[in-house]
């Protein structure tokens, strides 16, 4: 009965949303802004991947805001868990799993670095690459039974990454009078690794920030927040 009432209510809401979306009609082409991005983005920014171009440069200020939202959520988790630690003893995994946890994080870190560095060429960039790097941390944490060594570096890496993101923005403001202007570095030939202005640098900053925040959450789950 309760589920049925909830179902009817949710159905009403979803149909409302669907009707609102249907009233837009079938889109015939790109919108005005998206058409500008698709037509000019290649020359203006020098990135092949238009999604990364939009995330990092055109909407870079929004991304700075969203990264700070992520920071707020992560620090809330870490704060809660350091006040009320979950604190549960864990058993040791079997030796095969332990060996995997020693061998596999290196290649995963390498792959995460590849994704971050090729953010302007392939589907990837700071956010997915950071998640892949954090998954290496998850792999280490699945096998550990006590505190891990890299936990005390996470705060430092996180704040340095946020600082450098803001500084890269201010570099454009000082040099060309525009926050996060992409042309402060050479644009290069689109399609090469060293191209697209400051997009690789900002991707690296976002990647380090996302990776350290997600692994901070994981370390807090595992070891109870750490000692601030």
């Amino acid at each position, binding site marked *: 009965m309760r589920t049925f009432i909830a179902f009817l209510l*949710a159905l009403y809401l*979803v149909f409302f949303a669907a009707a609102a*979306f249907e009233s837009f009609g079938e*889109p015939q*082409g790109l919108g005005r802004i*998206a058409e500008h991005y*698709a037509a000019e983005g290649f020359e203006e920014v020098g990135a092949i991947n238009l999604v990364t171009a939009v995330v990092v440069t055109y909407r870079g200020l929004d991304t700075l805001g969203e990264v700070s939202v992520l920071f707020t959520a992560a620090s809330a988790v870490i704060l*809660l868990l350091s006040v009320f630690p979950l604190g549960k003893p864990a058993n040791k995994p079997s030796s095969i799993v332990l060996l995997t946890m020693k061998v596999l994080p290196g290649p995963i870190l390498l792959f995460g670095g590849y994704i971050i560095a090729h953010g302007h060429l392939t589907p990837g960039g700071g956010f997915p690459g950071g998640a892949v790097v954090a998954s290496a941390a998850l792999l280490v944490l699945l096998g550990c039974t006590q505190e891990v060594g890299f936990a005390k570096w996470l705060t430092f890496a996180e704040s340095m990454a946020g600082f450098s993101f803001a500084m890269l923005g201010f570099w454009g403001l000082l040099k060309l009078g525009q926050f996060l202007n992409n042309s402060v570095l050479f644009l290069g030939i689109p399609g090469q690794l060293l191209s697209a202005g400051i997009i690789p640098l900002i991707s690296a900053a976002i990647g380090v920030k996302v990776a350290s925040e997600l692994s901070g959450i994981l370390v807090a789950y595992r070891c109870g927040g750490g000692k601030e």
Partner: protein
Amino acid sequence: MSLSLVLLLSSMGLLLTGLVGIMAKKHLLRIALAFTLASTGVNILLVWTGYLAGRKAPIIDASIEEIATVAVVDPVPQALVLTSIVIGVAVSALLVVVAVLTSRELGTADVRRMRNLKW
């Protein structure tokens, strides 16, 4: 049945499932799980708003022969979804922590038995 319709139907189904779960379930972790389902549905809905039939992902490489404005889908919703996924992960982590700590504090994870939340 076009791919656009598949995207729309799956997003609506996920959204429906998530909303029903949030409203009707009693266990706190199930509510958190339903929340992540609903946020996945919203993400797919956002991708659907930028989808154009027969076009490719917005990465201009050698496999796109025409001019980019008639060959790629809208990159703006995809950029939104990219950030929204990561933020969704952090928010659901926060949700799980709050659920676990609340259930430990009150001795139960059942929403109906949480009497002393009313003040």
